[in-house]
C-alpha cells in the first residue's frame, strides 16, 4: 500500500491523534472511561495502522523489535514493582494507601495510575508483537 497517496497522507494525519488519544485514555483511566487496557489497544492500533500502510520495515524502524520486546516486560515489571514498592513502604502487596501522596485518596490514585501505565505498556507492545508475527510475509 506504499503507493496509495490518500492512505499515506491520511495515516500521517491520523496516527498522531490516535497516539495522543491512547495516551489520554491510559492517563485518565481513574477519572473517566477507559484505562490501561483500552488505551494500550488504541496506541497499538496507531502503530499497526502505520505498519499496514508504510510496511513492516518502516514500522520496525520506528519501533524496533528489541524495544517492543523490552517494553512488554517493562509493563509487567512496573505493575509488580508498584506492589514491591508498597511492601517496602510497610504495606501489603499492591496496598496503594502507603504510597507517598498528600492524602490517602491521592495515594490510591497514584498507585492506580502507575499500575495502569504498566498495563497500557504491556498491552500496546504485545498487540504490536501479535500483529508483527501474524502478518509475517513469505510464509505459507
Amino acid at each position, binding site marked *: 500500500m506504499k503507493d496509495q497517496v490518500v492512505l499515506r497522507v491520511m495515516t500521517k494525519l491520523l496516527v498522531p491523534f490516535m497516539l495522543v488519544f491512547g495516551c489520554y485514555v491510559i492517563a485518565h483511566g481513574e477519572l473517566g472511561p477507559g484505562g490501561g487496557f483500552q488505551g494500550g489497544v488504541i496506541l497499538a492500533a496507531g502503530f499497526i495502522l502505520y505498519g499496514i500502510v508504510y510496511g513492516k520495515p518502516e514500522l520496525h524502524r520506528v519501533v524496533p523489535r528489541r524495544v517492543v520486546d523490552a517494553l512488554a516486560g517493562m509493563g509487567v515489571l512496573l505493575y509488580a514493582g508498584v506492589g514491591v514498592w508498597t511492601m517496602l513502604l510497610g504495606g501489603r502487596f499492591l496496598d496503594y494507601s502507603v504510597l507517598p501522596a498528600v492524602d490517602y485518596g491521592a495515594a490510591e490514585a497514584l498507585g492506580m495510575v502507575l499500575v495502569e501505565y504498566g498495563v497500557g505498556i504491556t498491552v500496546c507492545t504485545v498487540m504490536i508483537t*501479535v500483529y508483527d508475527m501474524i502478518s509475517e510475509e513469505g510464509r505459507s
Partner: protein
Amino acid sequence: MNSVLLIDMVLLGLAVIVAIGVISVRSLLGAVMLGGIYSLLMALIWQNMNAVDVAFTEASVGAGISTVLLVGTLLHTRRDTNQSPAIHWPALFAVVLTGSFLIYGTLDMPAYGDPNAPIHTGRVKELLGQHVGKVDREGNHHPWKYGSIAEQSVPTDEPVHSYPPPRTHAGDDHAAAAGAHGHPEDDFKGHSPNTVTSLLAAYRGYDTMFETAVIFTAGMAMVLLLRRREEDA
C-alpha cells in the same frame, strides 16, 4: 414506548442480522468485516446500558484490533471458503440447548435497573459501610487487619444508594456529599471517580496484575514460536 428500549431492540435486531450474515457469507473478508460491525453494534448496546467501559473495550478490541488481526490472518489464506455453509445439526442442537439454559438462568435475575435488586440493597450497602483501608469523614485511616470486615458494623443511617443514582441539581447537599456524577463517596475521596478502574486496579489489583502477566506470556509465546532467529539482528 420507552425510547431506550426501542433503541436497544433496533440495535439487537441489527446485531442478530449481522451475526447470521457472518455465518452465511462465503467471502472470508466479508465475514471479518461483518464481525467488526457486530462488535461495533455490541459497543453501542453496552453504551445504551450505561456500561461505558465495556463499550470502550468492545469498540477498541472487538471492532478494532480483532478485525485487524483477522485481516492479517486472511493474507495467509484464501479469500473464500471452499464449501457452502451447511447446517450441522448436532452443533445446532448443542448451541440451542446451551442458549436455552442460559436464558433459563436469567429468569432468576432481577429486572435490569431494578433499584430493589439485592446488589443495590444488600451488597453495595455493605461495601459502602465497610471502612477497611478507607478514610472516614474525620480523616481517620483504617488500616487492614484480619477479620476486620466481619467485625465492623454496617451503618444503618446511611441512605441506600439506588441505581440509577437520583438526579440532583447543583447546590444540593446530597450531590455535594455524593461527589461528581452522582457516585457514592466511595471513590477514594474523589480521586478516582471511575468506579470500574478503581475496582480493577485497586480492589482487584492482583487479578489485573495476573491478567497483564497472561497478556505478556501470550506475546512472548508468539515471539518464541513464530519469530525466526535470523530476523533478530
